């Protein structure tokens, strides 16, 4: 009798546990049709200042929904008018005149005026401080309002690519994003909780087509496996930037394949040993079979690259460079021997990788393994948190090698190539080549499209020939959504546009 009571008691405890859990599952799946939860792999930058934080891709893709510039990119990579209605350029391509759209409102309800535009661009271009917050705006010499709806931007040198930079966010005059996040985008900022979430809501006074869903919660799920689990269970509705094997695991959901639009490479610190020696860099380029890496780490999904340019850029992309270094183990070993390494005295270095980015971690594992097979290279993975990687490896330039993806913040070749000019502040690999600097300068100042394309391609070729980095691929971008979620669109840029995403049925 007693025994039975005990068994019963245990059974009751267990059942109660299960029931409460069960009740909860119904609750989470029952989320409002107007609310969408998106999993993101890392917390946003500490600052949500659109003019400052533009370096962290993960922050930028979320801010895309909140802030807008005078112009904004569309899914085809064209620039479409946003806060501005139209613009004209003078013959010498050094003066741009923007006409403001009427009735564009900030999230606080105030209408955008020329004063706001002048303030925003002046702030972003650092005209008052002398230090541009947005590096691409360094060429701006003045921003003036000529009447209530016209702003004239003058450049110190001609730049045909300039309109692409006018995606820089417009914020209210006199405001500091540190005190409040106010933009003109289809969503307004609601709240954030560190390491937990960022919440945005539909902006009902948006000038254009209103967002389809009322509220988007970006949940920070740093662990790739937890992300898969959350999709499996329906805890989140959508996650982007998954890799092929994660997508395969989620085949019962909607899986969209696009391209991440970034240059994934084993970036090498050209400024210090061992990679200040071009032979060593070339040896690695021969030793790492990028197609094999794509097979091993990405199940064959991804586009092999040979320089700092990806196919979405069309005419700037030079396919010939992709297999410039055909896999050749013998040549790799020869070069390493020339540089003074041997089986008994192997080349050793560390690869800094942000742990939360599964695709980069997987690529790193494959790269380390391929290098190990040479018998002359011992590479060690150094897993890091995003912020540490950013401050130490990227900004602090304290790294041997790192696997990451460099994306374009604007749809211009400069966005990918400017960083390798020897004195560029973002030249974190410390690449220095006079030829490159000359070719790049020629490219940006050129007003002839063909000439410009040729010069940018020359830049790419210099990077490849010098083996500045071991180029790998433009990652396949798997976006997985629950089956009732529709409207996700890929951009040729690293952004996550939530405005068209909605729940159906």
């Amino acid at each position, binding site marked *: 009798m007693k*025994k039975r009571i*005990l068994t019963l008691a245990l059974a009751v405890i267990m059942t109660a546990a299960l029931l409460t*859990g069960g009740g*909860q599952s119904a609750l989470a799946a029952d989320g409002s049709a107007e609310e969408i939860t998106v999993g993101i792999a890392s917390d946003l930058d500490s600052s949500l200042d659109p003019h400052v934080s533009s370096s962290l891709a993960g922050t930028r893709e979320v801010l895309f929904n909140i802030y807008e510039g005078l112009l904004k990119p569309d899914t085809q990579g064209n620039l479409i008018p946003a806060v501005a209605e139209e613009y004209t350029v003078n013959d010498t391509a050094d003066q741009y005149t923007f006409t403001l759209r009427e009735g564009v409102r900030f999230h606080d309800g105030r209408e955008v005026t020329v004063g706001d535009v002048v303030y925003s661009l002046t702030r972003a271009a650092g005209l008052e401080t002398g230090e541009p917050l947005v590096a691409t705006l360094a060429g701006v010499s003045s921003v003036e309002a000529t009447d209530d709806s016209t702003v004239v931007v003058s450049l110190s040198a001609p730049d045909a690519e300039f309109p692409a930079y006018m995606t820089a966010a417009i914020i209210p005059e006199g405001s500091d994003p540190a005190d409040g996040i106010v933009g003109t985008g289809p969503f307004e900022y609601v709240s954030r909780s560190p390491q937990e979430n960022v919440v945005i809501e539909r902006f009902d006074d948006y000038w254009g087509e209103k967002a389809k869903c009322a509220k988007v919660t970006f949940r920070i799920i740093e662990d790739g496996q*937890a992300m898969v689990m*959350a999709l499996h*269970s329906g805890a989140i509705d959508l996650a982007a930037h998954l890799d092929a094997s994660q997508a395969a695991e989620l085949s019962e959901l909607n899986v969209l394949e696009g391209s991440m639009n970034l240059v994934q490479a084993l970036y090498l610190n050209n400024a210090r040993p061992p990679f200040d020696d071009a032979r060593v860099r070339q040896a690695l380029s021969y030793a790492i079979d990028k197609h094999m890496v794509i097979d091993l780490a990405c199940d064959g999904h991804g586009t092999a690259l040979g320089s700092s340019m990806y196919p979405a850029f069309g005419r700037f992309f030079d396919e010939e460079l992709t297999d410039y270094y055909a896999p050749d183990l013998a040549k790799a070993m020869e070069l390493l021997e020339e540089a003074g390494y041997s089986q008994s005295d192997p080349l050793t270095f560390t690869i800094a990788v942000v742990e939360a980015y599964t695709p980069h971690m997987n690529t790193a594992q494959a790269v380390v393994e391929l290098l190990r097979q040479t018998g002359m290279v011992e590479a060690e993975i150094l897993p890091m948190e995003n912020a540490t990687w950013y401050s130490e490896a990227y*900004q*602090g330039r304290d790294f041997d090698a790192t696997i990451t993806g460099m994306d374009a913040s604007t749809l211009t070749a400069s966005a990918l190539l400017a960083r390798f000019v020897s004195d560029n502040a973002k030249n974190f690999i410390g690449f220095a080549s006079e030829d490159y600097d000359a070719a790049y300068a020629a490219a940006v100042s050129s007003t002839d499209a063909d000439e410009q394309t040729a010069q940018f391609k020359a830049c790419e070729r210099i990077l490849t020939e010098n083996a500045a980095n071991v180029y790998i691929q433009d990652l396949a971008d798997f976006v997985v959504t629950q089956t009732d979620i529709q409207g996700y669109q890929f951009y040729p840029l690293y952004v996550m546009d939530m405005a068209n995403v909605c729940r159906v049925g």
Partner: protein
Amino acid sequence: MLVTLLLISLLAFLAFQLIPGDPVTKLLGSDYTPERAAALRHEMGLDRNVLVRYWEWLTGFVTGDMGVSYNYGMTVRQVMEGKGAVTAALSVMAWLLVIAISIPLGIALARWQGRRLDRVFVAMNQVFMAIPPFFLGILFTYVFGLVLKLFVPGGFVGPDKSFWGFLGYLIFPALAIAIPKAAMVTKLLRSSILNQMNEDYVRTAYSRGNSRWSVLKDHVLRNALLPVITFVAMTLADIVAGSIVVEQVFALPGLGRLLLASIGNRDYPVVQCIVVIIAFIVVFMNYLADIVTQTIDPRIRLG
């Protein structure tokens, strides 16, 4: 207790002063001038005596001002908001589960010592004690989450949205933490009772014609529970530690995840604060256990 607390906080504070790498260089990034660094250091008060800063930090801590996070530019308190509650709820729930499972089970096993039920459970106990909580968490995710669909892995709901949903989601993580500990406590209680059963007073009670059950209930239990209470109190430290890992398994936004992220981000004010809070909880629990033991058995004097 106060001495231990002070010592702990001092240790924690000093540890984070010895770290290679200076918050100022982190805040300023790669290009900064020595003058700017010095100015910022002065502004942050980092150029003053360590003990002075310790005192300020401690008084701030006690009054609820825990400093400012390097990484988020918010106060540590804002950063931790809501996360402490998750970890606390998880730990307390796991702890209560340990008690709820192990006390009845330990008594039952002692009561039916040597029977088949006892032998099966004692063997199972050994295995359960060897399971790492996070692996149990993974198993639960698979069995209860993915196969039986009793909960939504990763579908955490904040207490502000749905209090019961919040507690419901915590049940499986709490069980994952509790079961290995409950197995230990069960075993301890069982052997503690069996030890007592051999004492003289038990034989006397038997000789008066009491049944095994009534001897157990009226005489043995109080004595047998004493060592168990101390142990149960001590498991809280392990439970809190276990919750740090298990939070990761179930994607719970608690102190554990914040701690890991802050360690990775070198956000030392946050790390320091979490470490000290956890240590305080543990010390406090041990103290509480002492008091409870004393109340049950006034013969025990604790220094």
